[in-house]
């Protein structure tokens, strides 16, 4: 049987060491003819055996959370916040100092410095107010004219209604007055007629009485002249 060379035996030894991790066995006489490898094999077996019987140490008590550092700080603790607030303060200060105006008009933004825009804006506002006042005045004039015309028409209607009422009312009153007068005249005539009838009756009675007593002399009553 041919003895394996050093390279082969080294390969076999390394394979055996790797396979030992997988609990596989190898011919125990493989390395016996090579004293160096045999000694290494024995040492490896001894170490492996000692490790199997070795008892692991318990970990002493320690602060297990010490390594846990919360990197995610809340947004209000963000480190850049003071610097950002300072930057915004300086920006606001510069806006005030240089009197910067931002104007947005017709979808375009305009930036002006030193308050020029304020004066222009003031003039624009005055012009706009004048235009508005003029248009308001003209509107009011039209409204007043319309109102006066309406009033006039309404007044005419009212006058016409009043005149009609007055005419109607006086006509009715006169009608009533004439009716009353005619009734009065009629009543007077009825009274006179009754009075005349009474007088005729008396006269008739007097005539009848006179006739009757005329036939009998000295039968004339003593008060005959008095009655007459």
């Amino acid at each position, binding site marked *: 049987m041919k003895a394996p060379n050093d390279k082969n035996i*080294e390969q076999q030894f*390394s394979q055996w*060491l*790797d396979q030992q*991790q997988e609990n596989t066995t190898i011919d125990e006489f493989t390395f016996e003819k090579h004293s160096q490898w045999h*000694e*290494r094999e*024995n*040492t*490896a077996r*001894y*170490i*492996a055996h*000692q*490790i199997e*019987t*070795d*008892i*692991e*140490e*318990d*970990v*002493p008590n*320690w602060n*297990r*959370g*010490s*390594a*846990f*550092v*919360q990197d*995610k700080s809340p947004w209000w603790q963000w480190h850049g916040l003071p610097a950002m607030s300072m930057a915004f303060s300086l920006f606001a200060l510069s806006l005030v100092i240089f009197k910067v105006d931002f104007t947005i008009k017709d979808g375009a933004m305009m930036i002006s410095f030193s308050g020029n825009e304020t004066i222009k804006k003031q003039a624009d506002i005055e012009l706009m107010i004048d235009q508005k006042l003029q248009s308001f005045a003209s509107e009011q004039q039209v409204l007043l004219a319309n109102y006066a015309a309406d009033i006039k028409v309404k007044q005419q209607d009212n006058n016409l209604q009043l005149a009609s009422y007055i005419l109607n009312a006086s006509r009715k009153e006169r009608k009533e007055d004439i009716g009353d007068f005619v009734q009065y005249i009629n009543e007077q005539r009825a009274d006179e007629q009754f009075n005349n009838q009474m007088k005729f009756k008396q006269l008739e009675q007097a005539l009848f009485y006179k006739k009757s007593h005329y036939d009998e002399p000295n039968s004339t009553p003593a008060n005959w002249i008095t009655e007459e």
Partner: protein
Amino acid sequence: MFERSDETLIKQVLKGKKAAWITLVKRYEKPLFNYALRMVNHREDALDLMQDVFVAIFRNLSSFRGDSPFKGWLFKIAHYRCIEFYRRKRPMQGLDDLPEQTGDIADTCPEYLMNSSQQSQKLHKALALLPINQKLVVEMKFFQHCTFDDIARQLGLSVNTVKSRLYSALDKLKGHLELEHEST
């Protein structure tokens, strides 16, 4: 009880949920602490390194795309942090240099002495004598059960370099373990 996946927890952490972060930390703190303990051999330093790794994880969590498992990504960061830690602690010492003889883990951690066996202590003492580059490869190979390809990918090295470092480490460990055996 239903356990939330790493991806779900990461999404919640990124939304600012601290409880999800605590859950994620609790899930991986033990393997990470033991990894750090094996790499720096000092309990307080291991705790510092673990915290350092979790801080780095938290800071870079948003860049985790989920292409590979979270555990692998976590330990990749841990390896880099470990090397940085080592450089900071020993600025004059190279990564391939043998470490200075300092107090081992058993000296600084009485609980370790109680919990681990004598054989295990021997192994940890021998590991502490390895250069940091070799120790890292041993750690990934035997403790984290990575293949050579995985180790090479995570550390940004060629597979041959990884193998070379591991074989050198095994040779040194054999010597240290025999010395320990003889001394006891």
